[in-house]
Protein backbone atom coordinates (compact mmCIF):
# COMPACT_ATOMS: atom_id res chain seq x y z
CA UNK A 1 0.00 0.00 0.00
CA UNK A 2 2.85 2.26 0.90
CA UNK A 3 4.34 1.59 -2.49
CA UNK A 4 1.16 2.51 -4.33
CA UNK A 5 0.81 5.69 -2.25
CA UNK A 6 4.39 6.66 -3.03
CA UNK A 7 3.80 6.07 -6.72
CA UNK A 8 0.58 8.08 -6.71
CA UNK A 9 2.40 10.93 -5.01
CA UNK A 10 5.18 10.87 -7.62
CA UNK A 11 2.58 10.83 -10.36
CA UNK A 12 1.05 13.97 -8.84
CA UNK A 13 4.42 15.75 -8.85
CA UNK A 14 4.96 14.81 -12.47
CA UNK A 15 1.46 15.93 -13.46
CA UNK A 16 2.30 19.40 -12.11
CA UNK A 17 5.62 19.37 -13.96
CA UNK A 18 4.09 18.14 -17.21
CA UNK A 19 1.17 20.59 -17.13
CA UNK A 20 3.53 23.48 -16.38
CA UNK A 21 5.83 22.47 -19.24
CA UNK A 22 2.75 22.10 -21.40
CA UNK A 23 2.03 25.79 -20.89
CA UNK A 24 5.52 26.69 -22.14
CA UNK A 25 6.06 24.07 -24.80
CA UNK A 26 2.66 22.76 -25.82
CA UNK A 27 0.60 25.92 -25.68
CA UNK A 28 3.14 28.63 -26.40
CA UNK A 29 5.41 26.53 -28.60
CA UNK A 30 8.63 27.59 -26.84
CA UNK A 31 10.85 24.54 -26.83
CA UNK A 32 12.39 24.44 -23.34
CA UNK A 33 14.83 21.77 -22.20
CA UNK A 34 15.52 23.35 -18.83
CA UNK A 35 12.43 22.38 -16.89
CA UNK A 36 14.36 20.24 -14.42
CA UNK A 37 16.32 23.40 -13.56
CA UNK A 38 13.15 25.21 -12.40
CA UNK A 39 12.07 22.10 -10.58
CA UNK A 40 15.42 22.15 -8.75
CA UNK A 41 15.18 25.87 -7.90
CA UNK A 42 11.72 25.38 -6.38
CA UNK A 43 12.76 22.24 -4.52
CA UNK A 44 15.84 23.81 -2.97
CA UNK A 45 14.21 27.18 -2.21
CA UNK A 46 11.19 25.53 -0.57
CA UNK A 47 13.34 23.09 1.38
CA UNK A 48 15.73 25.83 2.54
CA UNK A 49 12.77 27.70 4.02
CA UNK A 50 11.49 24.61 5.86
CA UNK A 51 14.90 23.67 7.21
CA UNK A 52 16.25 27.09 8.19
CA UNK A 53 13.27 29.36 8.86
CA UNK A 54 10.00 27.48 9.45
CA UNK A 55 7.34 29.65 11.08
CA UNK A 56 5.63 28.55 14.31
CA UNK A 57 2.41 27.62 12.52
CA UNK A 58 0.85 24.24 11.68
CA UNK A 59 2.84 22.13 9.26
CA UNK A 60 0.46 22.43 6.36
CA UNK A 61 0.61 26.24 6.52
CA UNK A 62 4.38 26.01 6.43
CA UNK A 63 4.13 23.65 3.46
CA UNK A 64 1.90 26.14 1.70
CA UNK A 65 4.39 28.97 2.36
CA UNK A 66 7.20 26.71 1.17
CA UNK A 67 5.32 26.00 -2.06
CA UNK A 68 4.76 29.73 -2.45
CA UNK A 69 8.47 30.36 -2.00
CA UNK A 70 9.20 27.60 -4.48
CA UNK A 71 6.86 29.25 -6.97
CA UNK A 72 8.38 32.70 -6.53
CA UNK A 73 11.97 31.47 -6.65
CA UNK A 74 11.40 29.41 -9.78
CA UNK A 75 9.42 32.24 -11.39
CA UNK A 76 12.31 34.64 -10.72
CA UNK A 77 14.66 32.10 -12.28
CA UNK A 78 12.19 31.94 -15.17
CA UNK A 79 12.40 35.71 -15.63
CA UNK A 80 16.21 35.69 -15.46
CA UNK A 81 16.38 32.93 -18.06
CA UNK A 82 13.35 33.83 -20.14
CA UNK A 83 13.94 37.52 -20.74
CA UNK A 84 17.25 37.08 -22.56
CA UNK A 85 16.57 33.64 -24.07
CA UNK A 86 13.07 33.99 -25.43
CA UNK A 87 14.44 36.06 -28.27
CA UNK A 88 15.84 32.79 -29.58
CA UNK A 89 13.72 30.32 -31.49
CA UNK A 90 13.26 26.59 -31.90
CA UNK A 91 16.36 24.51 -31.40
CA UNK A 92 18.53 27.43 -30.30
CA UNK A 93 16.12 28.15 -27.43
CA UNK A 94 16.21 24.45 -26.51
CA UNK A 95 20.00 24.51 -26.28
CA UNK A 96 20.10 27.77 -24.31
CA UNK A 97 17.56 26.51 -21.76
CA UNK A 98 19.45 23.22 -21.54
CA UNK A 99 22.58 25.21 -20.75
CA UNK A 100 20.78 27.21 -18.08
CA UNK A 101 19.35 24.07 -16.51
CA UNK A 102 22.86 22.66 -16.17
CA UNK A 103 24.20 25.97 -14.82
CA UNK A 104 21.51 25.94 -12.11
CA UNK A 105 22.54 22.43 -11.13
CA UNK A 106 26.24 23.34 -11.01
CA UNK A 107 25.48 26.40 -8.87
CA UNK A 108 23.54 24.19 -6.45
CA UNK A 109 26.45 21.76 -6.27
CA UNK A 110 28.66 24.67 -5.28
CA UNK A 111 26.37 25.98 -2.52
CA UNK A 112 27.39 24.41 0.74
CA UNK A 113 24.53 25.71 2.90
CA UNK A 114 22.03 23.62 0.95
CA UNK A 115 24.14 20.49 0.97
CA UNK A 116 26.16 20.99 -2.19
CA UNK A 117 27.33 17.70 -3.68
CA UNK A 118 26.36 15.78 -0.52
CA UNK A 119 22.66 16.48 -0.98
CA UNK A 120 20.22 18.40 1.19
CA UNK A 121 19.02 16.31 4.15
CA UNK A 122 16.60 16.66 7.08
CA UNK A 123 13.76 18.18 5.10
CA UNK A 124 10.56 17.77 7.15
CA UNK A 125 8.06 15.25 5.80
CA UNK A 126 5.10 17.58 5.35
CA UNK A 127 3.83 16.72 1.95
CA UNK A 128 1.23 14.01 1.51
CA UNK A 129 -1.22 12.85 -1.10
CA UNK A 130 -3.84 15.42 -0.17
CA UNK A 131 -1.58 18.46 -0.51
CA UNK A 132 0.08 17.19 -3.66
CA UNK A 133 -3.23 16.59 -5.39
CA UNK A 134 -4.60 19.90 -4.14
CA UNK A 135 -1.72 21.54 -6.01
CA UNK A 136 -2.35 19.30 -9.00
CA UNK A 137 -5.90 20.64 -9.13
CA UNK A 138 -4.75 24.25 -8.64
CA UNK A 139 -2.19 23.88 -11.45
CA UNK A 140 -4.65 22.33 -13.87
CA UNK A 141 -7.36 24.90 -13.10
CA UNK A 142 -4.97 27.83 -13.43
CA UNK A 143 -3.42 26.58 -16.66
CA UNK A 144 -6.75 25.64 -18.27
CA UNK A 145 -8.26 28.99 -17.36
CA UNK A 146 -5.27 30.89 -18.67
CA UNK A 147 -5.56 29.00 -21.93
CA UNK A 148 -9.28 29.74 -22.19
CA UNK A 149 -8.81 33.46 -21.59
CA UNK A 150 -7.75 36.03 -24.15
CA UNK A 151 -4.23 35.78 -22.73
CA UNK A 152 -4.32 32.09 -23.59
CA UNK A 153 -5.51 32.77 -27.10
CA UNK A 154 -2.57 35.12 -27.53
CA UNK A 155 -0.20 32.45 -26.16
CA UNK A 156 -1.60 29.82 -28.53
CA UNK A 157 -1.39 32.20 -31.48
CA UNK A 158 2.35 32.50 -30.85
CA UNK A 159 2.67 28.73 -31.20
CA UNK A 160 0.71 28.73 -34.42
CA UNK A 161 2.61 31.52 -36.13
CA UNK A 162 4.74 33.98 -34.26
CA UNK A 163 5.12 36.46 -37.08
CA UNK A 164 1.41 36.49 -37.85
CA UNK A 165 0.61 36.95 -34.15
CA UNK A 166 2.99 39.87 -33.97
CA UNK A 167 1.44 41.51 -37.00
CA UNK A 168 -1.97 41.18 -35.31
CA UNK A 169 -0.69 43.45 -32.58
CA UNK A 170 0.13 40.80 -29.98
CA UNK A 171 3.18 41.66 -27.94
CA UNK A 172 4.71 38.22 -28.40
CA UNK A 173 7.62 38.85 -26.05
CA UNK A 174 5.33 39.67 -23.11
CA UNK A 175 3.12 36.64 -23.66
CA UNK A 176 6.04 34.30 -24.21
CA UNK A 177 7.66 35.51 -21.00
CA UNK A 178 4.36 35.21 -19.16
CA UNK A 179 3.88 31.58 -20.23
CA UNK A 180 7.51 30.81 -19.43
CA UNK A 181 7.42 32.39 -15.96
CA UNK A 182 4.10 30.84 -14.90
CA UNK A 183 5.25 27.46 -16.16
CA UNK A 184 8.53 27.80 -14.28
CA UNK A 185 6.66 28.83 -11.12
CA UNK A 186 4.49 25.72 -11.09
CA UNK A 187 7.55 23.57 -11.70
CA UNK A 188 8.93 25.23 -8.55
CA UNK A 189 5.80 24.21 -6.61
CA UNK A 190 6.28 20.64 -7.82
CA UNK A 191 9.87 20.87 -6.59
CA UNK A 192 8.85 22.02 -3.14
CA UNK A 193 6.26 19.23 -2.83
CA UNK A 194 8.81 16.72 -4.09
CA UNK A 195 11.39 17.83 -1.51
CA UNK A 196 8.96 17.54 1.37
CA UNK A 197 7.93 14.07 0.24
CA UNK A 198 11.44 12.69 -0.37
CA UNK A 199 13.01 14.52 2.62
CA UNK A 200 16.25 14.49 0.66
CA UNK A 201 17.39 16.40 -2.40
CA UNK A 202 20.43 15.75 -4.51
CA UNK A 203 21.63 17.80 -7.49
CA UNK A 204 21.74 14.61 -9.56
CA UNK A 205 17.95 14.32 -9.18
CA UNK A 206 17.67 17.28 -11.51
CA UNK A 207 19.85 16.45 -14.49
CA UNK A 208 19.02 17.29 -18.06
CA UNK A 209 17.69 13.69 -18.33
CA UNK A 210 14.67 14.73 -16.29
CA UNK A 211 13.93 17.66 -18.53
CA UNK A 212 13.84 15.16 -21.38
CA UNK A 213 11.55 12.79 -19.48
CA UNK A 214 9.09 15.60 -18.67
CA UNK A 215 9.21 16.62 -22.33
CA UNK A 216 8.56 13.00 -23.30
CA UNK A 217 5.48 13.04 -21.05
CA UNK A 218 3.86 15.94 -22.85
CA UNK A 219 4.85 14.65 -26.28
CA UNK A 220 3.47 11.20 -25.52
CA UNK A 221 0.19 12.68 -24.34
CA UNK A 222 -0.02 15.11 -27.21
CA UNK A 223 1.86 18.36 -27.55
CA UNK A 224 -0.70 21.10 -27.04
CA UNK A 225 -3.23 19.24 -24.93
CA UNK A 226 -3.56 19.63 -21.14
CA UNK A 227 -5.31 16.27 -20.94
CA UNK A 228 -2.44 14.79 -22.88
CA UNK A 229 0.10 16.23 -20.43
CA UNK A 230 -1.74 14.66 -17.49
CA UNK A 231 -2.12 11.28 -19.19
CA UNK A 232 1.50 11.34 -20.34
CA UNK A 233 2.73 12.07 -16.81
CA UNK A 234 0.67 9.24 -15.33
CA UNK A 235 1.67 6.76 -18.03
CA UNK A 236 5.38 7.48 -17.80
CA UNK A 237 5.37 7.37 -13.97
CA UNK A 238 3.54 4.06 -13.99
CA UNK A 239 5.38 2.50 -16.93
CA UNK A 240 8.68 1.64 -15.19
CA UNK A 241 6.71 0.05 -12.34
CA UNK A 242 4.54 -1.93 -14.74
CA UNK A 243 7.68 -3.06 -16.58
CA UNK A 244 8.89 -4.59 -13.31
CA UNK A 245 6.19 -7.24 -13.63
CA UNK A 246 7.82 -8.43 -16.83
CA UNK A 247 10.91 -9.45 -14.93
CA UNK A 248 14.28 -7.90 -14.17
CA UNK A 249 15.53 -7.86 -17.74
CA UNK A 250 12.71 -5.68 -19.00
CA UNK A 251 13.02 -3.44 -15.97
CA UNK A 252 16.75 -2.98 -16.62
CA UNK A 253 16.03 -1.99 -20.19
CA UNK A 254 13.53 0.64 -19.05
CA UNK A 255 15.49 3.63 -20.35
CA UNK A 256 16.16 1.91 -23.67
CA UNK A 257 12.43 1.25 -24.00
CA UNK A 258 11.74 4.92 -23.19
CA UNK A 259 14.08 6.10 -25.90
CA UNK A 260 12.57 3.69 -28.43
CA UNK A 261 9.08 4.94 -27.51
CA UNK A 262 10.28 8.48 -28.09
CA UNK A 263 11.76 7.67 -31.50
CA UNK A 264 8.82 5.53 -32.65
CA UNK A 265 6.37 8.15 -31.45
CA UNK A 266 8.07 10.83 -33.51
CA UNK A 267 8.18 8.55 -36.54
CA UNK A 268 4.68 7.07 -36.38
CA UNK A 269 2.45 9.41 -34.42
CA UNK A 270 4.20 12.74 -33.84
CA UNK A 271 1.02 14.32 -32.47
CA UNK A 272 0.93 11.97 -29.43
CA UNK A 273 -2.06 10.20 -27.92
CA UNK A 274 -4.47 13.12 -27.79
CA UNK A 275 -3.04 15.43 -30.41
CA UNK A 276 -4.33 18.88 -29.55
CA UNK A 277 -7.71 17.61 -28.33
CA UNK A 278 -8.90 18.10 -24.76
CA UNK A 279 -10.95 15.78 -22.63
CA UNK A 280 -14.52 16.94 -22.24
CA UNK A 281 -17.72 15.44 -20.88
CA UNK A 282 -19.39 15.74 -24.26
CA UNK A 283 -17.36 12.68 -25.32
CA UNK A 284 -19.76 10.54 -23.31
CA UNK A 285 -22.98 12.18 -24.42
CA UNK A 286 -24.86 10.30 -27.08
CA UNK A 287 -24.21 11.82 -30.46
CA UNK A 288 -27.35 13.50 -31.67
CA UNK A 289 -28.14 12.82 -35.25
CA UNK A 290 -28.57 16.10 -37.01
CA UNK A 291 -30.18 16.03 -40.40
CA UNK A 292 -27.76 17.27 -42.99
CA UNK A 293 -28.34 20.74 -44.31
CA UNK A 294 -30.20 21.65 -41.12
CA UNK A 295 -28.24 23.72 -38.64
Amino acid sequence: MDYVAHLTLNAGTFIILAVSLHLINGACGQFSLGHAGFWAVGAYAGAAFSVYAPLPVPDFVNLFISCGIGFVAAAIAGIIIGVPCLRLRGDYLAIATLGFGEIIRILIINMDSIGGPRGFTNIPNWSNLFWVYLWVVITIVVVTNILKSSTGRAIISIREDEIAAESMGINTFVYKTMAFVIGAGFAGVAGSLFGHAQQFLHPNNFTFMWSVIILLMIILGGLGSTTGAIVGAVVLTALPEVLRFFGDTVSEWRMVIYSLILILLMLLRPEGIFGKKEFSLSWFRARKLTPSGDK
Partner: protein
Amino acid sequence: MNEEMMFMLYDTAQFLINGLVQGSIYALVALGYTMVYGIIKLINFAHGEFYMIGAFIGYFTITYFHFPLILALPVAMLLSGFAAVIVEKLVYKPIRHAGRVAALITALGVSLFFQYAGQNILGADPKAFPQAMPELTFEFGEVYITTTQIMIMVSTFVLMVLLWWLVGHTKIGKAMRATSFNKDAAALMGINTDRIISFTFFVGAMLAGAAGVLVGMYYNTVEPMMGLIPGLKAFVAAVLGGIGSIPGAVIGGLVLGVVENLVVGFWESTYRDAVSFSILIFILLVKPAGLLGKNIREKV
Protein backbone atom coordinates in the same frame (compact mmCIF):
# COMPACT_ATOMS: atom_id res chain seq x y z
CA MET B 1 61.68 38.13 -13.34
CA ASN B 2 61.07 36.76 -9.87
CA GLU B 3 60.34 33.15 -9.10
CA GLU B 4 56.61 33.54 -8.58
CA MET B 5 56.18 35.10 -11.99
CA MET B 6 58.14 32.24 -13.50
CA PHE B 7 55.85 29.63 -11.98
CA MET B 8 52.82 31.58 -13.07
CA LEU B 9 54.17 31.60 -16.60
CA TYR B 10 54.92 27.88 -16.54
CA ASP B 11 51.46 27.16 -15.16
CA THR B 12 49.82 29.19 -17.88
CA ALA B 13 51.86 27.42 -20.56
CA GLN B 14 50.92 24.06 -19.11
CA PHE B 15 47.20 24.93 -19.06
CA LEU B 16 47.47 26.22 -22.61
CA ILE B 17 48.94 22.92 -23.79
CA ASN B 18 46.34 20.86 -21.92
CA GLY B 19 43.68 23.19 -23.29
CA LEU B 20 44.86 22.79 -26.86
CA VAL B 21 44.78 18.99 -26.50
CA GLN B 22 41.29 19.06 -25.01
CA GLY B 23 40.32 21.62 -27.63
CA SER B 24 41.50 19.42 -30.51
CA ILE B 25 39.13 16.72 -29.29
CA TYR B 26 36.24 19.18 -29.01
CA ALA B 27 37.09 20.44 -32.47
CA LEU B 28 36.97 16.94 -33.99
CA VAL B 29 33.52 16.32 -32.48
CA ALA B 30 32.32 19.84 -33.29
CA LEU B 31 33.18 19.33 -36.98
CA GLY B 32 30.57 16.60 -37.22
CA TYR B 33 27.95 18.79 -35.56
CA THR B 34 28.66 21.68 -37.82
CA MET B 35 28.67 19.62 -41.02
CA VAL B 36 25.38 17.91 -40.22
CA TYR B 37 23.81 21.19 -39.17
CA GLY B 38 25.11 22.87 -42.27
CA ILE B 39 23.50 20.32 -44.53
CA ILE B 40 20.12 19.49 -42.94
CA LYS B 41 19.78 22.08 -40.12
CA LEU B 42 19.56 19.35 -37.50
CA ILE B 43 21.27 19.57 -34.12
CA ASN B 44 22.35 15.97 -33.99
CA PHE B 45 22.16 15.35 -30.26
CA ALA B 46 23.28 11.78 -30.84
CA HIS B 47 26.62 12.92 -32.26
CA GLY B 48 28.36 12.43 -28.89
CA GLU B 49 27.32 8.78 -28.99
CA PHE B 50 29.40 8.13 -32.11
CA TYR B 51 32.35 9.41 -30.14
CA MET B 52 31.46 6.86 -27.44
CA ILE B 53 31.08 4.10 -30.04
CA GLY B 54 34.46 4.97 -31.53
CA ALA B 55 36.09 4.85 -28.11
CA PHE B 56 34.60 1.43 -27.38
CA ILE B 57 35.61 0.01 -30.75
CA GLY B 58 39.11 1.27 -30.08
CA TYR B 59 39.01 -0.35 -26.65
CA PHE B 60 37.82 -3.72 -27.98
CA THR B 61 40.13 -3.89 -30.97
CA ILE B 62 43.20 -2.97 -28.93
CA THR B 63 42.39 -5.09 -25.86
CA TYR B 64 41.07 -8.24 -27.51
CA PHE B 65 42.54 -8.25 -31.01
CA HIS B 66 45.78 -6.46 -30.10
CA PHE B 67 45.50 -4.08 -33.02
CA PRO B 68 48.22 -1.46 -33.20
CA LEU B 69 46.93 2.07 -32.87
CA ILE B 70 47.56 2.84 -36.52
CA LEU B 71 45.04 0.11 -37.42
CA ALA B 72 42.61 0.54 -34.50
CA LEU B 73 42.02 4.22 -35.23
CA PRO B 74 40.80 3.78 -38.84
CA VAL B 75 38.71 0.72 -37.88
CA ALA B 76 37.00 2.67 -35.08
CA MET B 77 36.44 5.59 -37.44
CA LEU B 78 34.89 3.43 -40.15
CA LEU B 79 32.62 1.51 -37.80
CA SER B 80 31.31 4.63 -36.04
CA GLY B 81 30.77 6.12 -39.48
CA PHE B 82 28.69 3.12 -40.51
CA ALA B 83 26.73 3.29 -37.24
CA ALA B 84 25.86 6.90 -38.06
CA VAL B 85 24.77 5.99 -41.60
CA ILE B 86 22.48 3.25 -40.26
CA VAL B 87 20.92 5.68 -37.78
CA GLU B 88 20.51 8.29 -40.51
CA LYS B 89 18.81 5.86 -42.89
CA LEU B 90 16.53 4.35 -40.24
CA VAL B 91 15.58 7.39 -38.21
CA TYR B 92 16.63 10.79 -39.50
CA LYS B 93 15.67 10.29 -43.12
CA PRO B 94 11.97 9.53 -42.45
CA ILE B 95 11.73 12.38 -39.92
CA ARG B 96 13.42 14.98 -42.10
CA HIS B 97 10.16 16.39 -43.45
CA ALA B 98 8.40 16.56 -40.07
CA GLY B 99 10.04 19.78 -38.98
CA ARG B 100 13.10 20.76 -37.01
CA VAL B 101 11.72 20.31 -33.50
CA ALA B 102 10.46 16.79 -34.25
CA ALA B 103 13.89 15.93 -35.65
CA LEU B 104 15.58 17.40 -32.57
CA ILE B 105 13.42 15.30 -30.24
CA THR B 106 14.19 12.21 -32.32
CA ALA B 107 17.89 12.96 -32.03
CA LEU B 108 17.50 13.16 -28.25
CA GLY B 109 15.82 9.76 -28.36
CA VAL B 110 18.66 8.27 -30.41
CA SER B 111 21.18 9.67 -27.96
CA LEU B 112 19.37 8.15 -24.95
CA PHE B 113 19.03 4.87 -26.81
CA PHE B 114 22.77 4.53 -27.36
CA GLN B 115 23.66 5.60 -23.84
CA TYR B 116 21.36 3.19 -22.08
CA ALA B 117 21.75 0.34 -24.54
CA GLY B 118 25.49 0.80 -24.02
CA GLN B 119 25.07 0.68 -20.26
CA ASN B 120 23.04 -2.50 -20.44
CA ILE B 121 25.22 -4.30 -22.96
CA LEU B 122 28.68 -3.15 -21.90
CA GLY B 123 28.10 -2.39 -18.23
CA ALA B 124 28.00 1.03 -16.62
CA ASP B 125 31.43 0.78 -15.04
CA PRO B 126 34.33 2.61 -16.69
CA LYS B 127 36.78 0.32 -18.46
CA ALA B 128 40.53 0.84 -18.54
CA PHE B 129 41.73 1.79 -22.01
CA PRO B 130 44.87 -0.16 -22.86
CA GLN B 131 48.18 1.56 -23.38
CA ALA B 132 48.35 1.69 -27.16
CA MET B 133 51.72 3.40 -27.47
CA PRO B 134 54.69 4.01 -25.18
CA GLU B 135 54.13 7.00 -22.94
CA LEU B 136 57.06 9.39 -22.76
CA THR B 137 57.07 12.78 -21.12
CA PHE B 138 59.07 15.69 -22.49
CA GLU B 139 60.01 18.46 -20.13
CA PHE B 140 60.58 22.09 -21.03
CA GLY B 141 61.47 23.88 -17.82
CA GLU B 142 58.42 23.17 -15.68
CA VAL B 143 56.12 22.46 -18.61
CA TYR B 144 55.34 18.84 -19.44
CA ILE B 145 54.02 17.36 -22.64
CA THR B 146 53.39 13.65 -23.20
CA THR B 147 53.61 11.61 -26.37
CA THR B 148 49.84 10.98 -26.15
CA GLN B 149 49.21 14.72 -26.17
CA ILE B 150 51.47 15.20 -29.17
CA MET B 151 49.80 12.24 -30.86
CA ILE B 152 46.33 13.77 -30.29
CA MET B 153 47.34 17.12 -31.72
CA VAL B 154 49.09 15.55 -34.71
CA SER B 155 46.20 13.22 -35.55
CA THR B 156 43.70 16.05 -35.22
CA PHE B 157 45.78 18.18 -37.52
CA VAL B 158 46.11 15.40 -40.12
CA LEU B 159 42.37 14.65 -40.01
CA MET B 160 41.54 18.30 -40.44
CA VAL B 161 43.81 18.63 -43.45
CA LEU B 162 42.15 15.55 -44.94
CA LEU B 163 38.72 17.04 -44.28
CA TRP B 164 39.76 20.36 -45.82
CA TRP B 165 40.93 18.48 -48.89
CA LEU B 166 37.78 16.36 -49.01
CA VAL B 167 35.34 19.26 -48.74
CA GLY B 168 37.25 21.77 -50.80
CA HIS B 169 39.02 19.77 -53.47
CA THR B 170 37.06 16.68 -54.40
CA LYS B 171 33.93 16.10 -56.42
CA ILE B 172 31.96 14.74 -53.48
CA GLY B 173 33.08 17.72 -51.42
CA LYS B 174 31.72 20.03 -54.06
CA ALA B 175 28.43 18.10 -53.93
CA MET B 176 28.38 18.48 -50.15
CA ARG B 177 28.85 22.22 -50.41
CA ALA B 178 26.18 22.46 -53.07
CA THR B 179 23.69 20.44 -50.99
CA SER B 180 24.37 22.55 -47.96
CA PHE B 181 23.92 25.74 -49.98
CA ASN B 182 20.60 24.77 -51.53
CA LYS B 183 19.35 21.22 -51.35
CA ASP B 184 16.63 21.48 -53.99
CA ALA B 185 18.82 23.22 -56.51
CA ALA B 186 21.55 20.65 -55.92
CA ALA B 187 19.06 17.85 -56.51
CA LEU B 188 17.96 19.50 -59.76
CA MET B 189 21.58 19.60 -60.88
CA GLY B 190 21.68 15.82 -60.62
CA ILE B 191 23.23 15.43 -57.18
CA ASN B 192 21.86 12.52 -55.20
CA THR B 193 21.26 14.61 -52.08
CA ASP B 194 20.15 11.67 -49.94
CA ARG B 195 23.47 9.99 -50.55
CA ILE B 196 25.35 13.22 -49.84
CA ILE B 197 23.50 13.64 -46.55
CA SER B 198 24.39 10.06 -45.54
CA PHE B 199 27.97 10.70 -46.55
CA THR B 200 28.06 13.83 -44.38
CA PHE B 201 26.84 11.82 -41.40
CA PHE B 202 29.48 9.23 -42.22
CA VAL B 203 32.33 11.73 -42.30
CA GLY B 204 31.14 13.54 -39.17
CA ALA B 205 30.83 10.32 -37.19
CA MET B 206 34.24 9.17 -38.44
CA LEU B 207 35.81 12.27 -36.94
CA ALA B 208 33.86 11.77 -33.71
CA GLY B 209 34.99 8.13 -33.59
CA ALA B 210 38.61 9.21 -33.99
CA ALA B 211 38.12 11.70 -31.15
CA GLY B 212 36.73 8.87 -29.03
CA VAL B 213 39.80 6.67 -29.50
CA LEU B 214 42.12 9.60 -28.83
CA VAL B 215 40.28 10.60 -25.67
CA GLY B 216 40.31 6.97 -24.50
CA MET B 217 44.10 7.01 -24.82
CA TYR B 218 44.33 10.38 -23.09
CA TYR B 219 42.18 9.62 -20.02
CA ASN B 220 42.67 5.81 -20.07
CA THR B 221 39.00 5.12 -19.46
CA VAL B 222 35.92 4.51 -21.59
CA GLU B 223 32.31 4.28 -20.39
CA PRO B 224 28.88 4.34 -22.07
CA MET B 225 27.97 7.81 -20.76
CA MET B 226 31.22 9.41 -21.91
CA GLY B 227 29.60 10.97 -24.98
CA LEU B 228 27.00 13.10 -23.24
CA ILE B 229 29.00 16.01 -21.82
CA PRO B 230 31.71 16.20 -24.54
CA GLY B 231 28.89 16.06 -27.08
CA LEU B 232 27.23 19.09 -25.53
CA LYS B 233 30.58 20.85 -25.20
CA ALA B 234 31.37 20.20 -28.83
CA PHE B 235 28.03 21.70 -29.70
CA VAL B 236 28.99 24.78 -27.68
CA ALA B 237 32.23 24.86 -29.64
CA ALA B 238 30.35 24.63 -32.94
CA VAL B 239 28.02 27.49 -31.95
CA LEU B 240 30.96 29.52 -30.68
CA GLY B 241 32.75 29.22 -33.99
CA GLY B 242 29.62 29.72 -36.03
CA ILE B 243 27.50 26.67 -36.70
CA GLY B 244 27.75 25.49 -40.27
CA SER B 245 31.29 26.80 -40.66
CA ILE B 246 34.11 24.23 -40.74
CA PRO B 247 36.99 26.53 -39.73
CA GLY B 248 34.63 27.96 -37.10
CA ALA B 249 34.25 24.54 -35.47
CA VAL B 250 38.02 24.15 -35.23
CA ILE B 251 38.54 27.60 -33.73
CA GLY B 252 35.55 27.18 -31.42
CA GLY B 253 36.85 23.83 -30.17
CA LEU B 254 40.34 25.13 -29.47
CA VAL B 255 39.07 28.29 -27.75
CA LEU B 256 36.67 26.29 -25.59
CA GLY B 257 39.37 23.78 -24.60
CA VAL B 258 41.79 26.53 -23.59
CA VAL B 259 39.16 28.51 -21.69
CA GLU B 260 38.04 25.43 -19.78
CA ASN B 261 41.56 24.54 -18.76
CA LEU B 262 42.27 28.10 -17.63
CA VAL B 263 39.09 27.97 -15.51
CA VAL B 264 40.22 24.69 -13.97
CA GLY B 265 43.73 26.03 -13.41
CA PHE B 266 43.05 29.47 -12.04
CA TRP B 267 39.56 29.19 -10.60
CA GLU B 268 37.69 26.05 -9.65
CA SER B 269 37.21 22.83 -11.57
CA THR B 270 33.56 22.53 -10.53
CA TYR B 271 32.74 25.70 -12.47
CA ARG B 272 34.21 24.37 -15.72
CA ASP B 273 30.93 23.18 -17.22
CA ALA B 274 29.06 26.24 -15.97
CA VAL B 275 31.56 28.48 -17.75
CA SER B 276 31.23 26.63 -21.06
CA PHE B 277 27.43 26.79 -20.93
CA SER B 278 27.64 30.49 -20.05
CA ILE B 279 29.81 30.98 -23.13
CA LEU B 280 27.13 29.23 -25.17
CA ILE B 281 24.34 31.46 -23.87
CA PHE B 282 26.44 34.59 -24.20
CA ILE B 283 27.26 33.77 -27.83
CA LEU B 284 23.65 32.90 -28.63
CA LEU B 285 22.50 36.23 -27.24
CA VAL B 286 25.23 38.51 -28.51
CA LYS B 287 26.31 37.01 -31.81
CA PRO B 288 24.12 34.01 -32.65
CA ALA B 289 25.98 33.51 -35.90
CA GLY B 290 29.19 32.73 -33.96
CA LEU B 291 32.72 34.00 -34.48
CA LEU B 292 32.98 33.06 -38.15
CA GLY B 293 29.32 32.75 -39.11
CA LYS B 294 27.39 34.94 -41.43
CA ASN B 295 24.46 36.97 -40.15
CA ILE B 296 21.25 35.87 -41.77
CA ARG B 297 18.21 38.05 -41.45
CA GLU B 298 14.96 36.32 -40.59
CA LYS B 299 12.40 36.58 -43.33
CA VAL B 300 8.64 36.39 -43.16
